[in-house]
């Protein structure tokens, strides 16, 4: 087993909004009246069915309430056992799934203020990602500009599947704002379910829905690169959250080969996709869809061709590993240090600014 380095930075944990009611104090009068009058009860995405084994590790499931909704338990489960110094909160409440752009903006604001008061104010090891109404980039930018002055917010959070591929110019104002504020774009597994999660329609089983997240990340990466996002915003860092990472080398082989054959179509892509990813893209380590042998895993790490791309994560409270086996076997001490400390620090420039 790889040995955990104390002081690690966990780049993907999920505090849960316990219920819509918990957001009441943070909603404007209009939106609070709306949800009461119209009987809006919850905004939980089908991406994580409440009782699915993946949604919460059995020993992390609280006696009552939603997994991830209790701060003392989060400390006890996710922070203390790994000697974690800082952890980035990615709240997955279903704000981006709404069809109304204005309602999404109202809820995004509430979620961010709730996170700041109920979590970041209470626990100095926590940092936040800014939830934005990605339904409307103009409103998303407004929310980024509003929240970014609080430097405990260290990134902007998007879902990997939404109305259109993430590289489209439609979304560029969000990337411009993120770059302006020195915030990476965190792209998390999940969908607004505007389209089926596979190109072949809606799959039957939840297992397939979750499996489909990895191809979705592959296509998001293709889109960001081919549309020229990293040419336009060379300083922008993109972090793939809960994406898996063992698919990355094979995807880059294919994308880079087609770029060589078809670069006349996308002449603004001025470096090879593999090179762009090594400089601008990072991936969290859980889930680790690892090969069956340590030897194969070593080969895979060679195929990654960089020790700067992986970031430590527990994906708390999702059930990706048991006990304290958060790191895959066969990582050297140096690589563990990079994954747990150096790489997150290099990715999130704001992380250390507010340490007391």
């Amino acid at each position, binding site marked *: 087993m790889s040995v955990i380095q104390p002081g690690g930075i966990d780049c993907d944990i999920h505090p849960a909004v316990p219920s819509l009611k918990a957001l009441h104090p943070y909603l404007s009068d209009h939106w609070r009246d709306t949800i009461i009058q119209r009987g809006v009860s919850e905004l939980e995405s089908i991406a994580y069915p409440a009782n699915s084994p993946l949604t919460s590790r059995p020993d992390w499931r609280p006696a009552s309430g939603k997994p991830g909704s209790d701060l003392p338990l989060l400390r006890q489960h996710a922070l203390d056992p790994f000697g974690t110094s800082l952890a980035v909160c990615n709240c997955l409440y279903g704000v981006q799934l709404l069809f109304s752009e204005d309602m999404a903006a109202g809820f995004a604001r509430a979620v961010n203020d709730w996170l700041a008061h109920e979590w970041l104010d209470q626990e100095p090891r926590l940092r936040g990602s800014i939830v934005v109404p990605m339904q409307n980039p103009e409103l998303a930018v407004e929310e980024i500009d509003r929240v970014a002055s609080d430097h405990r917010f260290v990134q902007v959070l998007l879902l990997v599947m939404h109305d*259109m591929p993430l590289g489209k110019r439609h979304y560029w104002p969000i990337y411009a704002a993120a770059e302006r504020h020195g915030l990476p774009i965190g792209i998390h597994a999940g969908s607004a379910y505007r389209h089926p999660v596979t190109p*072949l329609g809606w799959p039957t089983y939840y297992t397939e829905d*979750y*499996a489909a997240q*990895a191809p979705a990340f592959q296509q998001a990466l293709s889109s960001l690169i081919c549309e020229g996002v990293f040419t336009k915003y060379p300083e922008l860092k993109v972090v793939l959250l809960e994406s898996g990472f063992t*698919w990355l080398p094979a995807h880059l082989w294919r994308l880079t080969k087609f770029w060589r054959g078809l670069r006349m*179509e996308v002449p603004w892509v001025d470096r090879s996709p593999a090179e762009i990813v090594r400089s601008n893209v990072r991936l969290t380590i859980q*889930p680790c869809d690892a090969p069956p042998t340590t030897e194969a895993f070593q080969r895979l790490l060679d195929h990654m061709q960089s020790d700067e791309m992986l970031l430590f994560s527990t994906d708390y409270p999702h059930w990706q590993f048991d006990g304290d086996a958060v790191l895959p076997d066969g990582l050297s001490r140096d690589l563990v240090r990079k994954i747990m400390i150096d790489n997150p620090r290099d990715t999130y420039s704001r992380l250390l600014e507010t340490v007391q």
Partner: protein
Amino acid sequence: MNVQVTSRPTIQPSASSKLAIADGDIHPQRNSYKDLYPYMEQRWVEMAKTFGSRPRQAYQAGPAYPKGQPNASRRDAWPPEGGRPGSSLPFMQKQLLDENNIQLGILNPTGDNGASFQNREFGAGVASAMNRWVEAEWLIEPRLKGSIVVPYEDTDAAVAEIERWAGDPRFVQVLMVTRTANPPGQKQYWKIYEAAAAAGLPIGVHAFGFGGYPVSGSGWPSFYIEDMVGHAQSAQSFLTSLVIEGVFERIPAFKLVLIESGFAWLPPLAWRLDKLWRRLKEETPFLKRAPSEYIREQVWLTTQPMEEPQPREHVLDAIGWIGWDRLLFATDYPHWDYDDPAQVLPMPLPEQQRRDFFFNNAMSLYRQG
């Protein structure tokens, strides 16, 4: 002066001393709908003339993502006597089969072949005509074998088409494409797989198709390069659906060949599915074994377009993880991203591995020789 040699010298042996090659993906091309008319019922000829194919995409003719080259073809593949690349059997015999010592070539009549027309009945008529056209005009060359075009969105018609050709040794596979209208593991398609298995035929699933849904879970991308790279993601979804719905478990004789969709993505997908299955197996209690086990026993992949990492040797790891007995060399003639058997492997391999990769795997899968 020292000269740095950065590429292997290319040895050009005479054809008779060349390794025998099996090509898992050759595209016979018709010049126009008219070529099919002799093989179509009159009502479908009228339909073709008056309303056209109407697949689930925007344009009457030509792809929604313009290709990189006219007809997506090699510039030297235009037959000297005229017509589209891939339309001339004599030129294909000379340029592809003789030149490369191809002893077995699998014909995959993809494209405007009826399989994904909005008018399913018309599509079934065209698919049927495609098979008669291939039989009459291509299978006269004994090195070439056919894939049966089936209107897979109409299960009964597809099964009838398989049964029409089952037992004809000139047809060695049933042809589908990756972008189906519904997840291909769903029940509506099972009879097709059962019919293929009963006839001893693998299902060959070629990239492309117009299922009607966006080619990504986040909608339609902008570029042809994304469409092309995206075939690997469609193939992952195709295979995931077959595995998780239990098609391999339910039909043990079912064999799947994934064509022109890449292959290096397969090991990471299998690792992911195994891990998910262990976590979520109560959802799919009919699966008796780990996903990777079904994949290892019942799935083959063609190699073109060959993955090209830097350094190229990395691809050998991926092939090893899949299994050297599961890859089928293919050229994709006459298309632009053609793979040349003399250049496709990154380094010399042991003789047996080379023979398996280029020839034996396909000969054995397609029951030849």
